[in-house]
């Protein structure tokens, strides 16, 4: 398998160092990024509002041991301003300094517009096609995994984005087990993380290469799920968060699109496939309502492009044909905006949380049960620790 880990920078010229923040890190590697309180946008907004109005913040009670009696102290009971709510500001600053990591995998047959869509999502040339010199569109004989990393910055917030592409998936005549290289890769990332976690002396910030989200591209046939789609999503739905999308959706009229989506949802249900956002992980009714709305609308029908055209005086992203211009960011035309909002604006942190708390934990439990060892045993047996310092992980030859 090929290796092409290019570390390119976006707007900012520097690369983020590990542990560069020098901040406190909690023992179970829940970095400042993944606090649960920052999940839904509505909550974020209200908190921001509340931040500005001093003295009106509500103290949030943490879920604790059932028997423990906790008394709720509302701030109307406080006889002065304590400053607890300033912790939010501290969190924000820390997070901004630390930056985010996001790893996204795109899977689908050749020609479905995966690279174009990723470029459109992040409004920059982040896909493998834009980064490989002399790129030729040839169907590869085996499934290879190709990963490209970029550092993107927006308004001072830095994100280390890794896009993992899977050329060759589903393109051969015999596609048996074409998902195996992909499941192997995902499990390897979990393994890497697990090893780092189990070290006696471990790093302050473990580099997170786990796949947070897998976008699966469905061809716009208009009929139903194909056998390869069912097989793939069934196997991968349990180890990674899958977001299915209908690719090149400008080939379907609105009625065809609705019927197609309905049939896909039926097929997913009848095959027991759970795609993101999964019902089981909805924490509270608010989230449930929000996610239900999303679940009623998946898979999103998307169109991607990097070309701009002039429509009514505005420069919009679109595809120009003889019969009209398909505007990518127009909700009446396609659902690209919904996908982008889901992935970036509202559920990015949630995707990372689900990966960390659910999929990774499942893998961890499985592994530890398999090997039937304790933490320290695993640590000692697999790593030649000379003087207590951690050995570097040497398993990045999997791409």
């Amino acid at each position, binding site marked *: 398998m090929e290796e092409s880990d290019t570390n390119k920078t976006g707007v900012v010229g520097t690369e983020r160092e590990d542990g560069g923040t020098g901040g406190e890190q909690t023992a179970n590697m829940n970095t400042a990024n993944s606090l649960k309180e920052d999940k839904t946008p509505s909550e974020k907004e209200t908190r921001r509002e509340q931040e500005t109005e001093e003295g009106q913040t509500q103290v949030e009670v943490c879920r604790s041991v059932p028997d423990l009696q906790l008394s709720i102290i509302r701030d109307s009971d406080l006889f002065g301003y304590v400053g607890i709510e300033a912790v939010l500001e501290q969190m924000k600053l820390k997070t901004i300094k630390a930056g985010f990591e996001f790893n996204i995998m795109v899977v689908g*047959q*050749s*020609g*479905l517009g995966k690279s174009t869509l990723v470029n459109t999502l992040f409004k920059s040339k982040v896909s493998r096609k834009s980064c490989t010199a002399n790129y030729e*569109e040839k*169907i590869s004989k085996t499934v290879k995994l190709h990963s490209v990393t970029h550092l993107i910055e927006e308004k001072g917030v830095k994100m280390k984005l890794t896009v993992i592409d899977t050329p060759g998936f589903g*393109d*051969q*005549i*015999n*596609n*048996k087990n074409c998902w195996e290289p992909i499941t192997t890769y995902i499990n390897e990332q979990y393994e890497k993380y697990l090893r780092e976690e189990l070290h006696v002396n471990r790093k302050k910030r473990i580099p997170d290469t786990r796949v947070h989200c897998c976008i699966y591209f469905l*061809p*716009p*046939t*208009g*009929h*139903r*799920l*194909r*056998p*390869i*789609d*069912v*097989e793939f999503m069934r196997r991968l739905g349990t180890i990674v968060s899958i977001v299915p999308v209908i*690719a*090149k959706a*400008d*080939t379907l*009229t*609105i009625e065809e699109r609705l019927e197609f989506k309905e*049939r896909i949802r039926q*097929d997913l249900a*009848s*095959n027991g496939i759970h795609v993101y956002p999964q019902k089981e992980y909805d924490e509270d009714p608010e989230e449930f309502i929000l996610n239900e709305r999303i679940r009623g609308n998946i898979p999103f029908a998307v169109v991607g492009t990097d070309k701009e055209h002039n429509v009514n005086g505005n420069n919009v992203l679109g*595809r*120009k*044909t*003889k*019969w*009209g*211009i*398909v*505007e990518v960011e127009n909700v*009446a*035309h396609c659902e690209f905006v919904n996908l982008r909002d889901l992935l970036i604006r509202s559920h990015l942190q949630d995707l990372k949380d689900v990966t960390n708390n659910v999929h990774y934990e499942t893998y961890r439990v499985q592994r530890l049960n398999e090997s039937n060892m304790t933490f320290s045993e695993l640590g000692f047996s697999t790593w030649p620790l000379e003087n207590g310092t951690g050995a570097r992980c040497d398993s990045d030859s999997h791409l």
Partner: protein
Amino acid sequence: MSQADKMKQGQFTNPETPGYVGFANLPNQVHRKSVKKGFEFTLMVVGESGLGKSTLINSLFLTDLYPERVIPGAAEKIERTVQIEASTVEIEERGVKLRLTVVDTPGYGDAINSQDCFSTIISYIDDQFERYLHDESGLNRRHIVDNRVHCCFYFISPLGHGLKPLDVQFMKAIHNKVNVVPVIAKADTLTLRERERLKRRILDEIDEHGIKIYHLPDAESDEDEDFKEQTRILKASIPFAVVGSNQQIEAKGKKVRGRLYPWGVVEVENPEHNDFLKLRTMLITHMQDLQEVTQDLHYENFRSERLKRGGRKGPEPEEMDKDMILQEKEAELRRMQEMIAKMQAQMQKQGDGEGDGPHV
């Protein structure tokens, strides 16, 4: 008034030009006979599910060939192998009858492992040739039904960057048995530039792999300029990028067949939008040629292969059965011919013996 009209009116007048025999009228006779007899055409459509094959056929012939269609789910698709479904429909237009058989191949390319999805299709094509060969060699040749596949539309997905490995393998397997016409399906997903690029790519790959697709015959030098121009345009547009639809949409004040999108209407019969009209023109203008090439090239190839194999004890067991049946039939033929000869000899003897008795 033409000669034909004069003849019709029963005026057997002397032709004006001396030395005119009159067999220039033969084409009209053939024309009348064929119109009465009607035309037969078998068209096979091959392509993955969801490429709009059924819609295109319905649009081409303005019928609904699949009234009660149920699209199977993924679970059923896993177990299914490629099926062959032939539907025949009789279309009549201005007194000319066309008996059109459309052979559909559901299940092609659906399975995860499509390794043997074309063996069923190839056996079907060979079976039709076999049946025709058998009928042709039979005793009663008056009502031979021609079910041989005259043309195969191969649907290429517009989503890829060219031909897929499955496309290449399939076309190579059947290009010596049937006329292959590659068609780019659902062409409304491509912008004009993408369409040109894809066509060029496909033609390059067809050359690269040595696939023999059906080539339109060049226009004869004595045809008129329009026809020559039309043929040139058709040849330059292969493979045709088509859009199919039977829905009537209101566009710019008139009703057209098309697809309605929020950003515009794709008109099926607009040559600027897609090549549907070109495909239809090609099919209709060259229907006769397609049948001829099937008869003269593909069928003859099959026949010579077959008879060569039929001579020696065939290597494949299934072919052997057919060989044996053919040989048995030939033996029967010979026996019957001998019997007839014997009977004739007997009758002659009787006739001579009885003098001028009633002859049988």
